[in-house]
């Protein structure tokens, strides 16, 4: 059983105070047992989630560690012998003495990291992380780093938008933030901002893959990082004499400069930035070197990662639409659409909000190219994780007892997490395995799960029932089968890549929304309320608001649309109608505001062409096959897909088969 003392589900955050969710909150006893669980045992962790305002403040001292090789941090699950001033690591069961400065510890005086409700705490750690080093001596935290990556293979007009957004972004950056600029078209340009005489650019070719070592070597940074080159983060203000770059800037600081120092250079650069000069052969699309650009981004950033621990990365590869270019080594490399990608949309959203504008205007989507994108993303993600551990010392632990029987397993099932885990799992499998039939695999898994945990008499479908912890799971699976994650043919490969990327990145709650959109109905009859994600929810006098995470759809029923077209909302006596019209928009704006990247907002009317955005997500309980019993004002979906009801019937039949 979950032994967490604060087991009561927190209302504020569905992902819990620790941002850790497990598919099974009880351990299967053995490997065989685990394999019979169908849904793998998995944890979804969001270590860098924005801190919960109600969480305890960060602890102003470094964490206490278990002796190596365990090195686990002291946490509420540790057994503490207050008398002997000893704690026992819950992971390796080693006995550790408290250090001298913990001498005052007692049952009535425990440090915050031992509070039971503090299963997640943050530490503020000084640069070197020396235990006990007074914070005052640790100096100011290193400045955040922003490296902008701009595609120049765009038409002039769009580049102007980007420039505009960039200027705004730069203006909004904190003075001390370090800025770098990479532009790329056919070749990659790394701008050396710390060179005042003229615009200095390192050019890398797009057709060649370059290793991180080569780049560091070629940029003259090779020795710098490794041999402890005396870097001067936060104080590169060495005066530039006669245009010579001082030796101190020989390192990475040549490329990353405080905004205050390079704002001018940067704006000049932006002014002169032109669309890629390399000619485009007739009939071909512009050749661009997204891959190398990204690889440089990731390689180059590895340097600041080490020198500037508090890293905010904000890299924004921005591509023009629709280029597929196959490269010898990454044949599936696909870059399409306009892109604003954020590795770690950490704390500072300042630059991002501006970039968003550019994307919306150019009608682009947030896409990351598949092969590099993923590795870049993962690398960066991992690095942030490493960086985060050093700087913040997050300690998140959840104690799960070894459970013994099926009932306990059932009790511990987290169907939302399970659905998301399965979605991620099949996404990976679809990428990695050719000919992988996701639908069949999902169906089989669901059937096995239902057979394993359902309550039924053999060969009697009508006797089938599921524990409440599983009740939503078939519906999740049904929607997953119909979602963009499985039905990839409706999307371009990089849209799919993008969807998958966000699926992998977002919290469980958000991921569930991607798999199973929510539908809210607005009508005169009742306050806004969730309704079934079913075609039957459509009514002529309703406005529906669909939140499919990547898109938000406002759908006006036929009658509402007619009224609106006649302009009733502008008449004072119909103010209520105006309010009804307005309400879903407000709700949609709420959703959009709280989400990054910005979802696409679709406003449509029943029977309008845009209505497909809603219909595609609805359970086709009424299709043209069953059109005879269509009620007035309701709708049908022109599909051969099975409805959820049919799906469930099949499931029950198959699950109870012996």
């Amino acid at each position, binding site marked *: 059983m979950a032994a967490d003392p604060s087991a009561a589900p927190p209302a504020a955050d569905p992902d819990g105070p620790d941002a850790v969710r497990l598919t099974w909150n009880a351990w299967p006893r053995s490997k065989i047992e685990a394999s019979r669980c169908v849904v793998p045992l998995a944890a979804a962790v969001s270590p860098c989630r924005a801190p919960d305002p109600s969480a305890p403040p960060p602890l102003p001292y470094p964490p206490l560690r278990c002796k190596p090789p365990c090195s686990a941090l002291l946490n509420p699950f540790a057994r503490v012998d207050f008398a002997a001033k000893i704690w026992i690591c819950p992971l390796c069961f080693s006995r550790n003495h408290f250090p001298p400065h913990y001498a005052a510890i007692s049952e009535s005086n425990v440090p915050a990291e031992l509070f039971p409700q503090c299963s997640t705490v943050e530490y503020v750690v000084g640069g070197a992380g020396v235990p006990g080093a007074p914070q005052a001596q640790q100096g100011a935290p290193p400045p955040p780093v922003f490296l902008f990556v701009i595609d120049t293979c765009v038409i002039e007009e769009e580049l102007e938008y980007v420039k505009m957004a960039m200027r705004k972004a730069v203006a909004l950056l904190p003075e001390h933030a370090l800025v770098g600029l990479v532009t790329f078209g056919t070749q990659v340009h790394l701008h050396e901002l710390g060179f005042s005489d003229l615009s200095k650019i390192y050019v890398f070719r797009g057709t060649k893959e370059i290793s991180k070592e080569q780049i560091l070597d070629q940029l003259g940074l090779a020795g710098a990082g490794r041999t402890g080159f005396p870097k001067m983060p936060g104080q590169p203000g060495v005066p530039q004499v006669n*245009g010579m770059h001082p*030796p101190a800037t020989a390192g990475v600081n040549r490329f990353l400069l405080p905004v205050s120092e390079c704002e001018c250079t940067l704006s000049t650069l932006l002014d*002169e930035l032109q669309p890629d000069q*390399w000619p485009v052969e007739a009939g071909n699309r512009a050749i661009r070197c997204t891959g190398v650009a990204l690889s440089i981004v990731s390689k180059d950033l590895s340097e600041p990662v080490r020198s500037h621990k508090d890293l905010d990365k904000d890299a924004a590869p921005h591509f023009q639409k629709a280029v597929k270019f196959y490269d010898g080594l990454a044949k599936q490399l696909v870059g399409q659409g306009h892109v604003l990608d954020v590795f770690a949309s950490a704390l500072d959203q300042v630059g991002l909000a501006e970039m968003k504008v550019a994307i919306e205007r150019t009608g682009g989507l947030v896409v990351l190219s598949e092969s590099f994108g993923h590795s870049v993303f993962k690398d960066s993600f991992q690095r942030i994780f490493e960086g985060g551990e050093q700087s913040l010392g997050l300690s998140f632990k959840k104690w799960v007892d070894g459970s013994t029987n099926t009932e306990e397993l059932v009790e511990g099932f987290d169907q939302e997490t399970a659905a998301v885990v399965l979605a991620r799992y099949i996404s990976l499998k679809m990428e990695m395995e050719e000919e992988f039939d996701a639908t069949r695999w999902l169906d089989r898994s669901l059937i096995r799960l239902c057979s394993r945990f359902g309550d039924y008499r053999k060969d009697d479908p009508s006797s089938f029932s599921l524990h409440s912890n599983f009740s939503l799971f078939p519906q999740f699976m049904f929607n997953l089968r119909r979602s963009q994650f499985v039905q990839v043919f409706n999307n371009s490969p990089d849209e799919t890549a993008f969807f998958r990327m966000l699926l992998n990145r977002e919290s469980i709650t958000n991921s569930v929304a991607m798999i199973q959109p929510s539908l809210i109905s607005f009508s005169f009859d009742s306050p806004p309320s969730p309704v079934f994600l079913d075609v039957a929810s459509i009514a002529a006098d309703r406005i529906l608001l669909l939140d499919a995470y990547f898109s938000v759809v406002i759908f006006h029923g036929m009658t509402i649309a007619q009224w609106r077209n006649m302009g009733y909302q502008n008449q004072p006596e119909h103010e209520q109608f105006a309010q009804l019209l307005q309400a879903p928009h407000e709700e949609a704006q709420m959703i959009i505001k709280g989400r990054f990247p910005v979802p696409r907002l679709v406003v449509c009317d029943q029977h309008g062409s845009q209505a497909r955005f809603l219909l595609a997500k609805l359970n086709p309980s009424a299709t043209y096959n069953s059109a005879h019993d269509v009620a007035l004002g309701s709708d049908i979906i022109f599909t051969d897909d099975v409805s959820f009801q049919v799906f469930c019937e099949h499931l029950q039949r198959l699950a109870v088969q012996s």
Partner: protein
Amino acid sequence: MRMPDMPCIMPPNALGHGMTPASTPKMPYSPHSQVSTPSKIDPTQIPRPIAERSVIIFETRQGGQAAIPPAASSEFIVKDTGNCSPRLMRCTMNQIPCTGDLLTTSGMPLALLVQPFSLPHPSEEPIQVFHLINCINTEYSQQPYDITTKLSNMETNCISYLYILMSFAGFSNDTPREYFCNLGPDGRRRDADERPELCRGTVEFIATKELMVRDPMPAVYFFLIDVSMNALNTGATAAACSAISQALSDLPEGPQTMVGIATFDSAIHFYSLKRAQQQPLMLIVPDIQDVYTPLQTDLILPISECRENLEQLLESIPNMFGNNRVADSAFGAAMKAAFLAIKSTGGKLLVFQSAHKLLQPVDKNLKTMALEFAKYQVCVDVFLATQSYVDIASISVVPNTTGGRVYYYYPFSALSDPAKLFNDLRWNISRPQGFEAVMRVRCSQGLQVQDYLGSFCKRVPTDVDLPAIDSDKAIMVTFKHDDKFQENSECAFQVIMLYMEAREILVPVPKFLSSFVIECKELLSLTDFCCIFSVRCYTTVFGQRRIRVMNLSLTCTNMLSNLFRYADLETQFTYVVKQGKQLDQVTSTCINVLQSYRKYCASVSSSGQLILPEALKLLPLYALALTKSIGLRNDGRLDDRSYWASIVSSISVVLAVPLVFPRMIALHDLILREDDESLVPTPLTLNSENIRDDGVYFMENGEDGLLYVGNSVHPAILEQLFGVSSAAVPNQLVLEQFDNELSRKVNEVVNEIRRQRCSYLRLRLCKKGDPSGDFFRSLLVEDKALGSLSYVEFLVHVHRQIQSKLT
């Protein structure tokens, strides 16, 4: 020259002094010179070069025969009466042996030295230029083959004075009506003498559009400057930048002149100088293993659009890289990258290199690279300003394959060398030159071209490709017999060069001529006459595609004595210099020639005499000088020798001799001179007896100028010359002009020599008693030195060798 046998004392006669002016056809003929054997040799009587003072008027053909050209070193004015000027083409012998055996017997080489753009004498008539419209009318314009046939036809007619029976006979149907002319009784066209294109030895044609494979290319100059630590510290970068900046004004004006610039250390930095940009854009290519260009356009721009930006950039480069700590220099990669930037147009790539630490090994890659450069018409000149070994032997492969050359400043002095660097660069871009040239030499049946030697690239055996060809470059062509000639028949040589003028491009660039040359070959089989065609096809600096045709026709002979009589010493000696032989080989070559003469032509002489053919009487002296030259000496630096070897490969006759056999003049008594005929005083014999301890001497070889200051020079002279009264003058010499007559005179003389040599000369001060003085003395060819013979001893040695061979 006949010298007495050892026991006899014969009074010197007019011929016996060895003081006869260099033989010209007008000169009374002396069968041979003799030098007596050692003990009695009078050092004042042995053969030495005589300076020719008067200006000779030289008609290339007289009395229906080729005239014997004056010495290359003398001043002469050529009148083209059927053969081309000897400046353009000189043969090692002015009569051609009828058989290969005769040639072998003589021990002499048969070779042409072709210097297609040699500077004419100011009083000479310019080469006449013709349009090809005469023989190409519209009905042929769509048929390239026919046009080239016509062109060849024209060439054939250009040598109609050679009593060619065929004339237009074989092609009369093809002759355009307006060009048709009846033949006279001698088989010549009756109008041949009125038509310059039919009676001149050298003519030029403007190539028509039909002969062009590509549109006219702009004249591109790309500067590549080393900015690694060493280059900056020694001032080489600053010198290069300043030189380029000043030389920009010498580039031809106009939209067709384009420039580009890049710098390099361990990476390559390109610059985009587009005027619209507020700042120049520096684009760095860090990947030197596999280079590429950072932009497709804008790396080269018309000079008119970027002159100011470029000047500004050149001014800021030395500071910009002021404390560059990168010691490596990616020489090869930088050249490759710059090449890529101008690959589409071709052009000149001027590399300023100084670092000694090359990042990539200089090896066979350079040869491959050079061939590719040549293929895309990129000519590379390398300016090496260095203070250490740089492996010139390897580096020089690139310029020597692409029609460029190496300039060498060692040890580079930031004080004295920038002036030379600037002048070298300036001359390099302002001298007469052509781009995209193809040259082919043809000759009468009976001979065939054996090999070409010079700064060029040869992709097919018969043609020479020259991305650039300038007035200083000469190409040596060797021949061998494949048949016999009749006595007194004529052997003709024709050089055809197609080239593009590079100064201002008015007319489309002519077709790049491989196809043209192939057609010529087919036609040649029809020409049953003895004729060596030097066909030059090149591009002059004015952007016109032109065809320069140079013809030389020489009489054939069966007489060995005639071969010796008409031998051209300077050309033969240049041949030996270019052969790159070893020390012993040089001596034995000399001995073989003299032995042959002794054996077959001087049978009457007694065995105790050393007998020299009059035309070749200086051969031993020059051979001795060659064994003591920088290129062959064993005690020199490897780079010095490699540099020497690299420049002699394309050196002209007129510069080859002084390079080996320098000229020495006295400066201290300049103002006392009586003979005011010429600016430069009579050269002194190269032995130390002529060096007085209170004298100041100047010795030059066309490359270096050595100012020798004796131990007890009067302080006033030093004061007048150098502005200081003691010998504390630095070795790196800047020859200033002070306000006194001596200084003015000296400067006048040095400037005149510079003009003659087309070279600024690298001036050095040599002081008696220190290594610089020793070096000076080592160039005194006639002196005995450690491990080498004096002139007299050498004559004795040669004589003994001949005697031992004869017995």
